[in-house]
């Protein structure tokens, strides 16, 4: 991010949202809402305002585990390193204005709509952690059950616990930790897909980290299969087993809690053993390794860009095996997890491929299209607008003198002509008459 911010000719708009998009490949008109930070560019990120602010909320970046003032810098590595005010928390006391030496705080700032002309668009919307329903595997019911992202923040040296592992119920260090894999993934009632082995590898990494910091903590991983597909991943998994991390192949059938100690009791059957007997084990802390899911916000982007999504909710690519980079809309390219769950290495390869796909398109002055496009006979057009309503590619528009096709956006599907009540639209090379002749010829020989 920092490198991107420093690159000349590259404009970075953080804390911004896509508002509207018009046009087609090579000529997109994009409107971006740059949300008001209530702090202007003079801010140097010194953090003096954070110290005086009396309005306290919870810190989203640390999964709500520590307090955060209403004026804050998003996180330590945020680019640009500017403070911003959460107006839902701010009480407008003005203390930050008094303490700011650079006079950077401006309560009157408004959202700005920035208009841009762009040639191609790369969609890199990333992912969210799956939120289990309340009570599922004890989530949100028992305090000592946390998700992987919370654990990540806890283990981070700049996190809310400065890298110490604690139990949320009493702040003590746990002695026995269990990771539960495939929460919300590979489950027919939730998400059917596997998150590309990412949750497996995160659990292995975090269990190794815990073991390195506190060799006496017993770390177990309850799994269906460990999916360690990738360069050096299997070796990493084997190394973690050698370090003493226990892997139990099981499906957890029940989680209960001791109400006094808040310790967790699980009932499970080790499916690698011959016996059918159920074992009861006790743990201090349980970490749910949740699936990667598409963020909620992508629905808005999907609507604006008219993209398709696959069954898993991520954006649909041109072809799952032969072209997982481009979308069916020319000029719009996918990068990373926006297309489906990926590890960091895979995301980087995918993003680089996306960048070159977009650049290849832009490096040429010309864009070739096929001639199989809808054509309108304006004399027959009754201007009903059904074609505009039904076009999946937004390529046909109704004007005063009849419908008009944008030949770059049009993909030649013919939905408009099938819907046209006055038979004013035809498809070049695939006209109605041609099909009629085909039908006649076929039925003649029979």
């Amino acid at each position, binding site marked *: 991010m920092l490198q991107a911010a420093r690159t000349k000719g590259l404009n970075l708009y953080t804390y911004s949202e896509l508002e509207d998009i018009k046009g087609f490949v090579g000529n997109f008109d994009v409107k971006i809402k740059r949300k008001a930070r209530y702090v202007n560019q003079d801010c140097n990120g010194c953090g003096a305002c954070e110290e005086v602010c009396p309005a306290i909320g919870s810190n989203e970046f640390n999964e709500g585990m520590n307090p955060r003032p209403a004026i804050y810098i998003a996180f330590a590595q945020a680019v640009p390193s500017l403070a911003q005010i959460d107006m839902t928390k701010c009480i407008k006391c003005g203390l930050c204005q008094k303490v700011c030496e650079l006079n950077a705080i401006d309560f009157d700032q408004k959202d700005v709509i920035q208009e841009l002309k762009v040639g191609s668009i790369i969609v890199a919307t990333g992912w969210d952690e799956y939120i289990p329903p309340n009570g599922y595997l004890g989530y949100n019911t028992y305090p000592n059950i946390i998700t992987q992202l919370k654990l990540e923040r806890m283990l981070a040296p700049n996190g809310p616990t400065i890298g110490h592992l604690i139990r949320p119920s009493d702040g003590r260090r746990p002695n026995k930790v269990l990771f539960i894999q495939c929460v919300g993934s590979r489950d027919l009632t939730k998400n059917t897909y596997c998150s590309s082995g990412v949750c497996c590898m995160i659990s292995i990494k975090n269990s190794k980290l815990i073991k390195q910091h506190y060799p006496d903590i017993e770390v177990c991983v309850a799994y269906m299969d460990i999916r360690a597909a990738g360069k050096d991943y299997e070796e990493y998994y084997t190394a973690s087993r050698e370090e003493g991390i226990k892997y139990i192949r099981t499906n957890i059938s029940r989680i209960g809690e001791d109400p006094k100690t808040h310790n967790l009791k699980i009932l499970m059957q080790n499916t690698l053993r011959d016996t059918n007997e159920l074992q009861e084990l006790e743990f201090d802390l349980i970490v749910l390794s949740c699936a990667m899911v598409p963020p909620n916000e992508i629905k808005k982007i999907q609507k604006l860009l008219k993209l398709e999504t696959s069954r898993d909710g991520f954006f649909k690519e041109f072809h799952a095996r032969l072209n997982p980079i481009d979308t069916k809309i020319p000029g719009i390219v996918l990068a990373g997890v926006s297309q489906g769950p990926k590890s960091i290495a895979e995301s980087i390869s995918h993003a680089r491929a996306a960048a070159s796909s977009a650049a290849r398109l832009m490096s040429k002055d010309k864009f070739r299209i096929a001639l199989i496009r809808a054509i309108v006979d304006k004399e027959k057009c009754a201007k009903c607008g059904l074609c505009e309503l039904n076009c999946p590619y937004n390529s046909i528009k109704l004007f005063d003198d009849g419908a008009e096709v944008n030949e770059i956006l049009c993909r030649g599907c*013919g939905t408009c*002509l099938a819907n046209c009540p006055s038979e004013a639209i035809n*498809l070049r090379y695939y006209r109605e008459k041609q099909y*009629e002749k085909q039908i006649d010829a076929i039925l003649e020989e*029979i």
Partner: protein
Amino acid sequence: MAGTIRAQYPSTIRPIRINCTGRVTPNLLIRAISKGADGVIVAG
């Protein structure tokens, strides 16, 4: 598809390739039936 999975189908079925199922007009379906076809499958 039928070809790649080597599925057998009666020789009296005659496929007509169309760009997109959205392209199929009622006119084509009715024409086929009125000219003597027993049925029309729109697949895609």
